[in-house]
């Protein structure tokens, strides 16, 4: 569940929380694109560090660290599979360059998780929905999306009580070999899916009885407007993107191993 808590919004007031979600999302996408552009370790370290001030400014460091810890397992998996194939490909030798590329690939994943985590930690589902709506996404899709986001913690809570109920009937999740352990989760997943379906039907009925979709043209109480901070972030985003593309095209990037040894 720790990965989820890294994506769970908590209400705090900070300059980052006040930013226009559309701009924040553009920023996250820019980071995403840059992370894909590079596979070398040095630029990815830079990319990782660039985002730390955002986390500190938004005062979400504790939640952020938790989500990083949640991503650590997957990162480790990425590292080991890549490392294994490099190791086999190099003829059972551990080469420093291989280690560095593998670390780079892993860090790329970490950067992606990091940027999305910062975005979700600092953007309320309402705000996000508003942003989508005002970029002319059909309201049905916006509603489905915000509802999905909002129900993540509810489902996590439900999963916890299902686990408790099955443990009270002698289910031991950590028992048995790999296959048995996967099968252990069936008694958890089925009630979870059933209740999610039930819940969605109930929600649909409740919405229908409150005249959902009665008017075609909806208005909003809050309207998103760009402020000084938003323009600053636009500038930062464009700056980073341009710099990244320039470096990619014209500057040779040294390996960290060479930079350290020579």
């Amino acid at each position, binding site marked *: 569940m720790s990965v989820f808590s890294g994506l769970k919004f908590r209400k705090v007031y900070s300059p980052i929380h006040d930013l226009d979600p559309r701009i924040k999302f553009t920023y996250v996408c820019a980071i995403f694109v840059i992370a894909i552009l590079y596979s070398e370790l040095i630029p990815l370290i830079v990319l990782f560090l660039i985002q730390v001030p955002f986390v500190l400014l938004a005062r979400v460091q504790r939640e952020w660290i938790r989500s990083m810890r949640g991503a650590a397992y997957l990162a480790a998996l990425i590292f080991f599979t890549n490392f294994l194939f490099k190791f086999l490909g190099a003829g059972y030798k551990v080469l420093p360059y291989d280690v560095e590329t593998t670390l780079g690939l892993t860090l790329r994943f970490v950067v992606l998780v990091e940027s999305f985590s910062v975005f979700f930690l600092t953007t309320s589902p309402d705000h996000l929905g508003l942003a989508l709506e005002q970029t002319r996404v059909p309201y049905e899709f916006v509603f489905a999306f915000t509802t999905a986001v909002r129900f993540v913690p509810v489902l996590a809570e439900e999963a916890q009580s299902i686990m*408790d*109920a099955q443990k009270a009937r002698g289910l031991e999740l950590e028992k048995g070999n790999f296959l048995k352990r996967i099968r252990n989760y069936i008694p958890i997943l089925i009630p979870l899916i059933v209740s999610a379906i039930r819940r969605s039907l109930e929600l649909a009925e409740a919405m229908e009885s409150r005249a959902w979709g009665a008017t075609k043209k909806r208005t909003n109480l809050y309207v998103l407007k760009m402020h000084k901070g938003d323009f600053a972030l636009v500038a930062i985003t464009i700056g980073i993107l341009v710099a990244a593309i320039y470096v990619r095209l014209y500057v040779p990037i040294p390996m960290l191993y060479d930079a350290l040894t020579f």
Partner: protein
Amino acid sequence: MIEVKDVYFSYPSGVQALTGVSLTIQDGEFVAIMGQNGAGKTTLVKHFNGLLKPTKGKVLVDGVDTTRVSIAKLSRDVGFVFQNPDSQLFSETVEDEIAFALKNFGYDASVIEKRITWALNLLSLTQYRKTSPFMLSGGERKRVALASILAWDPKTLILDEPTIGQDYEQKEKLRQFVMQMRTQQKTIIAVTHDVEFVAECNPRVLLMREGKVIADGAATKILTDPETLAHASIVPPQIAQIFLELPGLNLPKDVIDVYEAERILKKALEKQY
């Protein structure tokens, strides 16, 4: 015997749910735990089968510290029926649902067969043996959940909100069933908001408020004390209210049972006329 010694518990989110709870539940006792939402009732009973471990203090079940043994091991002696049956039902048939725990506890196939028949019979579910639990009504699903716990015949039974969503007839059956369990020297612990149900069963009552036990005693004593009840946001049962509202007639103040009330009122009426 369940001993709770100065237990404190706070959830990872930081919510302090129990603050210094101490109590002892003897074998064969019937205890109703009451109190407003968020008072810590469910949190407390989740300590009895090890689902939660105290942050401070100790919980001993038959002398064994719950932090030292697994939930599975404790559950053999302490059955826990959850409030919402949908958080446990997952099998294709009612029969498989009941067999689930028995298989987990490692019973033989022949024993499992016998236990299923016994449990289905006990809760009048025999005709649903091969039915999918998802096809049953809410009340029936609740009974299947109960049957799936009773099947391994635990010494102690914890019921979380057993009367919610049950019609009067089912409630009455549940009461009779609880009374039957008592004659078999089972310990029963019920978490409930239902004062009328508690009044009919007449158990020991524990009142909780903000993570503390604020009153502990016989139902006749606690359910007829409006001041204490008000602290836990509970209204006395209707019978008790009648007796509390008639001070002029010199009636006893600790009546919660319908039949006893009938007898006393008849006598009082005969005297008057």
